[in-house]
């Protein structure tokens, strides 16, 4: 049975990141301190997250006292399994990315570093807030702060083209945020003071149509960040950002905040039963399916590495949305785990793409010929990441795909596994040519500078984690258990949550 303990512990990961942001800003004249602060904060955030995970795994939920905000709405954090899963992932990958960022800014001699690192920290604080939000209002605040804090990062290069992309990015995410704002206000009106409740709290709170509209508002709100079709255009546009930003924020923090939000909304605001009753699950699943297919096809036609990765992200995020829509325990567990799985694999891909860019200045797939011999480790990482995306077994993507597929079958939706495998094939179709061209096609690699080992280490670390997760998804942070616990709390299912032979 779950038990709640009131403590201020969940505030600490957020506080750490915020403190780091201020520290970095203050230390803007002392370059060394910036990274020190970042590493300290990232390490500390990870440490506190890992310190809280055992409680969560034992069924103890850490809750902060509620800070009053407005009547019927307070700010509160609650370290439930789903939140801990996201928090641990984000802080772990923050640490990995920090190493990379430090090397990246030095290699490229980037400007505005203090702003860069402090905005990064604020983004992570916001992500932690989103992860641990106990109610829609807290979630919304984190969501909006994340939007704003990532803007400077996206437009870091400051050129007109970049600024235009940044405007698109912000227009989408801010407008989405406003709709989420409306939805949160509405939910607060229907059920004042309601926290995220496993299984939803809106049952019977309003008429069917009103609830459907509310759901649409919620979904457009969080779905913008989750890049559900047709709200996805900002994500490829945001690829103008420096690679560490694309890697962490647009593979993990921002987009996952959206996907995580979709899970929260479907599982903790509406609940699978209500969604089913209102026919929302079908609608959402259809949107997810369309996104998965469209984005995969779109990725095929993209020659720019990072943009192809972005479309892949669009497609993969909808796996999570799909799981949330299906709403069976297996599917939710698969979706929750996919947050983690996709995080590790996609960050590997992004970081590898970044190394390629740093070492050769090349950003297009067709230019990669002959590079395989010069950067073998990078393309090893890239290949493994791509295979993982396609759901090849022994990589974590398989685990989420399997559970999603099984969950779909359990819900009598045979098209779910078909869709997932179709997407898997498309994944191979757009990832492996990159490796093929680099490793097997002849070509002039041009001038290749030797990338710093600190640039190479993070992708290797990430893919190593992914490989471990693929065979031992519970090792370390207990990601799979967390996903499973989260799913179990939302939907009671008769099905065994793991498919084994015995």
């Amino acid at each position, binding site marked *: 049975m779950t038990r709640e303990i009131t403590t201020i512990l969940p505030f600490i990961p957020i506080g750490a990141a915020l403190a780091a942001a201020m520290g970095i800003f203050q230390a803007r004249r002392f370059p060394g301190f910036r990274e020190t602060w970042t590493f300290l904060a990232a390490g500390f955030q990870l440490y506190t997250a890992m310190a809280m995970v055992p409680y969560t795994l034992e069924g103890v939920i850490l809750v902060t006292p509620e800070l009053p905000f407005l009547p019927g709405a307070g700010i509160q954090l609650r370290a439930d399994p789903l939140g801990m899963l996201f928090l641990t992932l984000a802080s772990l990958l923050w640490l990995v990315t920090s190493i990379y960022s430090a090397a990246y800014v030095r290699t490229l001699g980037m400007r505005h570093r203090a702003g860069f690192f402090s905005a990064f920290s604020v983004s992570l604080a916001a992500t932690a807030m989103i992860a641990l939000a106990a109610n829609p209002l807290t979630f919304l605040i984190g969501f909006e702060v994340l939007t704003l804090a990532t803007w400077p990062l996206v437009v870091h290069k400051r050129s007109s083209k970049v600024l235009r992309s940044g405007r698109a990015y912000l227009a989408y995410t801010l407008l989405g945020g406003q709709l989420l704002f409306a939805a949160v206000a509405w939910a607060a009106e229907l059920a004042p003071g309601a926290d995220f409740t496993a299984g939803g709290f809106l049952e019977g709170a309003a008429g069917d149509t009103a609830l459907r509209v509310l759901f649409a508002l919620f979904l457009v709100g969080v779905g913008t960040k989750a890049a559900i079709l*047709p709200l996805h*255009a900002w994500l490829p546009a945001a690829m103008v950002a420096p690679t560490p930003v694309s890697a962490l924020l647009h593979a993990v923090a921002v987009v996952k905040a959206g996907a995580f939000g979709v899970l929260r909304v479907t599982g903790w605001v509406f609940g699978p039963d209500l969604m089913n009753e209102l026919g929302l699950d079908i609608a959402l699943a259809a949107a997810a399916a369309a996104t998965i297919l*469209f984005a995969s*096809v*779109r990725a*095929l*036609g*993209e020659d720019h590495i990072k943009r192809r990765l972005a479309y892949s992200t669009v497609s993969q995020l909808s796996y999570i949305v799909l799981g949330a829509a299906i709403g069976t325990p297996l599917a939710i567990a698969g979706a929750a785990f996919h947050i983690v799985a996709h995080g590790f694999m996609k960050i590997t891909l992004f970081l590898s793409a970044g190394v390629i860019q740093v070492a050769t200045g090349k950003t297009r797939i067709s230019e990669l010929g002959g590079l395989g011999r010069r950067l073998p480790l990078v393309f090893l990482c890239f290949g493994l990441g791509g*295979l993982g995306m*396609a*759901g*090849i*077994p*022994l990589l974590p993507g*398989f*685990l989420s*795909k*399997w559970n999603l*597929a*099984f969950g*779909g*079958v*359990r819900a009598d939706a*045979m098209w779910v*596994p*078909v869709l*997932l*495998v*179709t997407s*898997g*094939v498309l994944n*191979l*179709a757009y990832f*492996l*040519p990159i490796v*093929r061209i680099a*490793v*097997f*096609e002849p070509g002039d690699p041009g001038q290749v500078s030797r990338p710093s080992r600190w640039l190479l280490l993070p992708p290797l670390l990430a893919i190593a984690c992914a490989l471990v997760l*693929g*065979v*031992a*998804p*519970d090792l370390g942070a207990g990601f*799979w258990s967390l996903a499973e616990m989260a799913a179990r709390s939302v939907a009671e299912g008769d*099905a*065994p949550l*793991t*498919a*084994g*032979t*015995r």
Partner: protein
Amino acid sequence: MNPLDWLAIPPLAHPGLWLALGALVTAIATATGVLGRRAASAPGILFAALAVFAASRAPSGSVDFRVARFDLVWYHADDLSVLFALVFSIVTLLGLLYGAHRLGPGETVAALLYAASAVATVLAGDWITFFVFWEAMAITSVALIWQGGLPESRRAGMRYLLVHAAGGAALFVGIALHASASGGVLDLGRLAATGPPFWFLLVGVGLNAAIPPLHGWLTDAYPEASTTGAVFCSALTTKTAVYALLRVFPGAEILVSLGVAMALYGVVFAVIENDFRRLLGYHIISQVGFMVAGVGIGTELALNGAAAHAYSHILYKALLFMGAGALIEATGRRRLTDLGGVFRSMPVAAILYLVGALSISGAPLFNGFISKSMTLSAAGEAHFYFAELFLSLAAVGTFLSVGLKLPWFAFFGKDRGIAVRPLPVNLLAAMAITAGLCLLYGVRPDLLYRMLPFAASYDPFTAGHLASNVQLLVGAAVLFALGFRRLAPTPTRNLDADWIYRGRPGRIARPLVTGARALGPVAQAVRSGALTAANRAIVRLAAPGALATGAVRRDPFSFRTPIGRTVLLAAMVVGWLLLASRL
């Protein structure tokens, strides 16, 4: 305890483990420079030998362990799986020996991993493990094909990969559906041949078995692999599928028709093929058809026949591909129309090739005979008379193109005076050993029969069998002798199922991709258009006339509501309130 007895301990008895270790050692040794590129296959040969040894002594039983929340039975040995594991290991050893003179580290590692995956697939005890290695096989085999080194190898490899990914996808769906239906039980065992799980699994497995029209990948990619790569390819992928069919769908009657159709399909296309490795590829399809039909017939004899035929087939087909590879290595040509009269320059290889050709044709005293006649007899005994008839027809066709047409036009026929490079010893040795095995099993069928999964006894050497086979072959030979000119190859390319994704239909995909690309700007235009329109509507409401003069756009300062209008509007508001309240 004899150190070699350790190989009988289950974890170490897994031949795939040794093959994978071989790959690892090769990779490390060549990457660190301990081993020169020229000797890259040496450790592989050693480890493949260990794998053969391990497979020959593999104890039956299961070993499972928990991975990623699944209880995976990664070692499940019974007669059927060990039979396949053994022959896979043997052919790996032979293939490495065959290519030792030219195998680089990349190709060696890919080949070893490919073989390891195949072995692990047949030794898998549950669907998940099976799927894991099934996918691994697809990927590693592509890595092997890509080593073919030609632009066409890379393109064909990519197509191969995608087609296999699609097959794996169908398999995945099938497994998920099956798992759901069985309540999470994933043991690899006989399944009912009905319902969606069956069809998905059939498509998934059938694609690897190259059942038309899912066979396009085979004849597309195998001719583009390197000479050595093709040897591995010919042996492993399709036979793993046969194993899966044997394990899962014995007696599924639809397989009889499919098998017969395959057997004939391959034969007919082989008759008009010019690229001799593609020709051999068509004969893989044809021969696998025998096995598929055997699985469909489903009697113990038929299943034994299918398993035995897979075993034989791997050996003689490897030999045939070795021969084809020898031809390519010696002459640098790969089309029958470019060849002719090289027998005199490379008699040993030619004769060894002919051993393979006779084996595949089912000539008595060669190993094809002892397994093929099992299937034919089983068909007869189980009253699949037409199956038997058509399979015999396929056998005739096999002899016609592999046994007569190919050697005639390549080795004999018109001498074009082609310069022939001498063949290395290891290549010929590998061919000789393989040919020796073909002959050995052809003469001593009991060596093979005792490894078969069922106890059904069978004697191939009855006078009737022998008579029937000899007559068939002679009949076909007579026809060829009379009409070989009409069977002469032409330098053409025949369309086949790969047209579906390479020809006109395949080109549909491109507009789809381009169309998806074009959607972006369109959507962008719609979005900004909608925004502009909304904004204009608002401006029009607040500042009538402003837009018409372009005033707002040109100079925002110039526009202001006339103050008289404010006063007028105030009066209107008063009027409205008066009116509305009084009504």
